[in-house]
């Protein structure tokens, strides 16, 4: 049976300000979901809350994987259960080589009970594997020896996120605007990379403003977020319509959520 990521009536606050006000969503392995919405609607908050960022406190509702409530779990425990977040702004860790970082990550994900200091995945096996994944993503093997995201261009950072996803083979991947700030070549690489990786074993939640990523990875479901709620869910045609026509009609249909969103945007601008 395929795994299920189930989000039920999720409420999330950041620094005591409520951002998500009851989000419901079900993602099965093998499905692609698009999450769209104007600035301030809470898309990235959902991504961080799902991954377990300590600054995003879950004040109500639940997140479950196959019936196991992970709401209280730490980020590393969630990752070991198969959750992955591709960051909008990948973090630089100076002095830590890409290969070392990924080797530790892979060792933990594949052996979820591994403790620090216990054995890592074999070097030969790891090297063969990362080399193959890097070749598939058109990355120079030299990247493995560089420090994680240190001095990387925007495109290189995003490609590094996709490489980590390829190595960690998550059950559920959340892509937080992985296509933002990239030139069209880089968007193509990321889109193709994701298309290669997604399949029956991975459920994907794509947070995006762009159409390109969805062209390569057509979603079965499109969710529209406004004012911290999911106000509409449709298919790929909804994503296409929002790209073409914007959020004006969505706002009209959901005036209360639109007002919440406007307040959130104002607060963010201050």
């Amino acid at each position: 049976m395929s795994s299920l990521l189930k989000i039920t009536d999720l409420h999330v606050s950041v620094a005591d300000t409520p951002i998500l006000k009851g989000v419901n969503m079900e993602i099965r392995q093998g499905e692609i979901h698009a999450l769209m919405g104007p600035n301030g609607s809470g898309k990235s908050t959902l991504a961080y809350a799902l991954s377990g960022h300590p600054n995003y406190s879950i004040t109500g509702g639940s997140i479950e994987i196959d019936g196991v409530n992970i709401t209280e779990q730490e980020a590393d425990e969630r990752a070991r259960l198969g959750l992955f977040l591709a960051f909008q702004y990948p973090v630089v860790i100076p002095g830590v080589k890409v290969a070392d970082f990924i080797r530790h990550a892979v060792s933990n994900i594949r052996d979820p009970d591994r403790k620090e200091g216990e054995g890592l995945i074999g070097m030969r096996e790891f090297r063969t594997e990362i080399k193959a994944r890097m070749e598939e993503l058109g990355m120079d093997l030299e990247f493995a020896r560089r420090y994680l995201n240190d001095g990387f261009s925007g495109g290189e950072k995003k490609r590094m996120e996709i490489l980590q996803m390829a190595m960690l083979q998550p059950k559920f991947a959340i892509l937080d605007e992985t296509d933002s700030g990239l030139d069209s070549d880089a968007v193509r690489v990321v889109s193709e990379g994701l298309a290669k990786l997604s399949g029956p074993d991975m459920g994907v939640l794509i947070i995006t403003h762009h159409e390109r990523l969805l062209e390569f990875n057509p979603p079965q479901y499109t969710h529209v977020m406004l004012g911290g709620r999911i106000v509409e869910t449709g298919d790929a045609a909804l994503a296409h319509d929002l790209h073409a026509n914007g959020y004006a009609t969505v706002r009209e249909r959901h005036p209360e959520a639109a007002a919440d969103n406007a307040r959130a945007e104002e607060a963010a601008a201050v």
Partner: protein
Amino acid sequence: MTVTIDIDRIGFSAEVFEEFLTTRSEPSWITDARRAAFAKYEELLGAELDPEEFKRIDLRIFNAAKFRPLTADSDASSVSTLLAGETEYGGSIRHVDGTTTHENVCEDMTAKGVLFGDLQTLLTENRELLEPYFLKQAVRPDADRFSAWHAAFWTSGTLLYVPQGVEVDLPLHSLIAHTADGVADFGHTLIIVEDEAKATLLEETTSANEDQSGLHVGCVELIVGKYANLRYVQLQNWNQKTWHFAHQAGNVASEGSLQWTVVGLGSKLSHIHQDVNLNGRAATAEVNGVTFASDRQKISYYTQQHHKAQGTHSDLLYKEVLRDDSRVIWRGMIKVDAAAQQTDGYQRSDALMLSSDARCDSIPGLEIEADDVRCTHGATTGRVDEEQIFYAESRGISEKEAMHMIVEGFFQQVYDRIPIEIVRDTLSRTVQGKLGIESMTAV
């Protein structure tokens, strides 16, 4: 706060000095120099230490009377080492509780005129060659009470002399060990690399066990000739009951280059006065510092990069990690004399705090008398970035493991400057040991 040492608690009285002299069989010129230094020591005990260098260090609980330069309890067999056996050495020397217990040097080097071994023996045998250097050019006995104290009581020491044009390819190894409780050692390291010569010396300090107390009042003198090249590493790895005071100075002649790495892992309290003197045109020095303080350790550095000639270049990078209640002090100074035009001086100290109870003071400084120079300095103090931790956690890496990777990465930037693989590897392993983690291996 004024810094004074209670003279009653010094314990290194004239009687102790005379008794110490009876244990030495040395030529009179050495004894005479000791006597002069002892007189200077007694005089300097009454003088205030330079507040700029010492005001942040609390010496009130330091009781020198608890330590003695002589001990019958030495046990050379209990000494452990981080660096010996890790690579092929051209020679090695070992000092235990202030006595040289082992020395060897490959015949190849001796045939080329290289001197390597016990300082007292080689000074005695080669007075004409070595007397002009020993405690005369790099470190002066009258610098302060610690240098005078050392010059009066220096115990054993390592001497390396490389004649003009001789390149020593294999590194040399020097170990300074404490095995007896309450030992005071006054180890001295003197390295002379003549014009166009080349050498590498790796030195480490160690305590046989965690519980014995110890005192090291050391001195390092590095003399680098014209077009010569010296790489020197000192890995201070005492236990946390050892006091460590040292005057260390490197003089670099025209077109010479010195690469100097200072590692501070151990000691209860350590204070190192480190001078780099760029005496000749286009002399260069690279200074690396790796410090990892934990528990209640206090580790202090006073560094000077003194540019005395035209076109000289210095580059200092210190990295400090602090955990628990530890304290690190770095006071750095770049001095540029009026004659030292077209000088390029750089100094930087970065501290990473792992605990809110640790404290770090980083104080860079410049004194520039020339007008056509480029000097830059900087100091940062920061905590482990929460976003870095979260990023690693989101990849299944635990918070603790992430913290350890970040510390390793922080030091990696200075390891990258050290061209000696075994030093990099040993540092990495030792730091990991202090963190309690498995080593990372690169692809």
